């Protein structure tokens, strides 16, 4: 069951922090500041951050950054990171060329 969340809860206003320029998502080069700003713009789930900023949408699919982003989001929302649902995992587990994905074989041939 999804947890009920009111998106109008007061989390204050975005204040710049000295380490806002830090890269968090290495693949898509998204900074901590961009992530924090997006949270104040209403992106309160890992999935929304991903859709809004492309965090975790690069070739590694969030394997390096998802825990870090979860931490940032939890801190800004002042909740435990355990309350945050991890973003959905999708095939392919590793990037795969169109020519390969399209080249289907039934095992055993």
């Amino acid at each position, binding site marked *: 069951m999804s947890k009920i969340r009111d998106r109008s809860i007061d989390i204050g206003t975005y204040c710049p922090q000295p380490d806002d320029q*830090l*890269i968090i998502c290495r693949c898509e080069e998204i900074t*901590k500041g961009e992530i924090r700003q997006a949270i104040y713009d209403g992106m309160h789930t890992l999935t929304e951050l991903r859709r809004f900023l492309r965090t975790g949408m690069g070739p590694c699919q969030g394997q390096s950054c998802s825990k870090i982003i979860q931490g940032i989001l939890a801190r800004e929302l002042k909740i435990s990171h355990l309350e945050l649902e*991890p973003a959905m995992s999708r095939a392919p587990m590793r990037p795969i060329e169109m020519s*390969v*994905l399209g080249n289907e074989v*039934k095992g055993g041939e």
Partner: protein
Amino acid sequence: MTFERAGAVMKRYDVIVVGAGPAGLTASIEAAKNGLKVVVFDENAKPGGQLFKQIHKFFGSKEHKAKMRGFKIGDELLKTASEVGVEVVLNATVIGIFPDKEVTVNIEDQLIHYKGDAIIVATGATENMVTFEGWTLPGVIGAGAAQTMMNLHSVKPGNKVLMLGSGNVGLVVSYQLLQAGCEVVAVIDAAPRIGGYGVHASKVTRCGVPFYLSHTIIKAEGDTRVTGVTVGEVDGNWQIIEGTQKYFEADTICLAVGLSPMSQLLKMAGCTMEQDPKKGGLVPVCNQYGETSISGIFVAGDVSGIEEASSAMIEGKISGIAAAYSLGYIDEESLVTKAKVLEASLRSLRQGMFAPENRGKILDKTEEGYDISMNLLKRGYLTEEEVESYPGVKSKKGIHPVIECSQNIPCNPCQDACSKKCILIGEKITSLPVVDKEATCTGCGMCVAACSGQSIFLVDESQEEGYTYITIPYEFLPLPKKGDIGLALNRSGSEVGQAEVVKVKTAKAYDHTHLLTIKVPTELGLKVRFFKQLQEVLV
């Protein structure tokens, strides 16, 4: 729709195992032994998972393959797997798990569809990351990357390495870096205490590597690659304390800040997941046999909760027999009997101060009531005074073992190694080893080589007037020769005098742990625990 090369029905296995690491291989072996048709897919070019990067001797007891080096366990598993008819397919990347236990696999330039009546997911773990200024620079690498480069590809990850993280991975990899010929400029950790086994820390410390606890990286310096690191001390709120900055010249920063279960495949498959910090992150909810919420999909190893390879191998066995049961290859009684034994074995590994339930707890006494050394937890070594308080350290005439083992960790090869019964641990493998003063040590050195933590030394004050002979485990190159004069280092890695090599013992049974006997003036007998070659110092 038709497949371009449609033909026969999709190939179906009794069980498809994803990942040929310690858990996946043991699971496959167990399933195959029980008559199941098993295939294992692994995305890597070499099977064995992390085992082939683990060149240290394992902890545990005999049943856990203690004192065997990880990569040799890997070899053994592969051999058994092939003997029992497990099909291991390498360079085979599982792309997804779909309904009806369909697995699609990328092999070469094809996407191949397979079906399993059961699936065992043993994908292991992925490394956690930590951010700091410059963390994207070339030269900042994961600890796993360092292991891969040096132990699989025989390339040094760097010449001067700073290790971030003092958990077992950080400690073990630091030691491996030293073995590969790298300099480890420091091990730092934001936590106030060393996270890994004290014995792992001690063997790094005595080589002269400094530990900085309550320290974090402020910045990786360099424009196009790491040229140095600035670190600083943190206060109770993880904020840098002004004026504590230190700079290290380094070309490599190694991150060893924990692991997370690589559970994406299970989430994709639709298994019910939970976040469990004690298990390292997002894990599937599963029963005692590792079966997930989707009947027939099992898990084993780090993917179901971060632990050691030793426990992964037992979990693998359990899920292997559970899969056999679920497909009717064994009956319930057989499952329960087998599982009972394995679960007991797993329990014995999950005891002691590093047991999962003790994660995050600060213990100050051992199970036996000895004080736990805070010096060990903060600086990586036991002080001379502390050492003497443990039951493995007894003064005695003639040659005798000195066991500097001060934490309850699941390990007992030393007890088995001594045929003269000098060393007693007892039933509970986490107990501290006790040296029996009455038993006669023959100086065979088996205990020194068997100790996975390299914390056993032979001390002999009776060989030569005014000198103490100390036998230490030695796993570096070049190997010193008899007659070599070098520096005598104490437990903290500081030079306390000179030492002369009087004997170098090498034996197959020691498995690459050489026994170096050095002599030092008697007053240094309780201090000296490492030998540094002079030519190394001169370079």
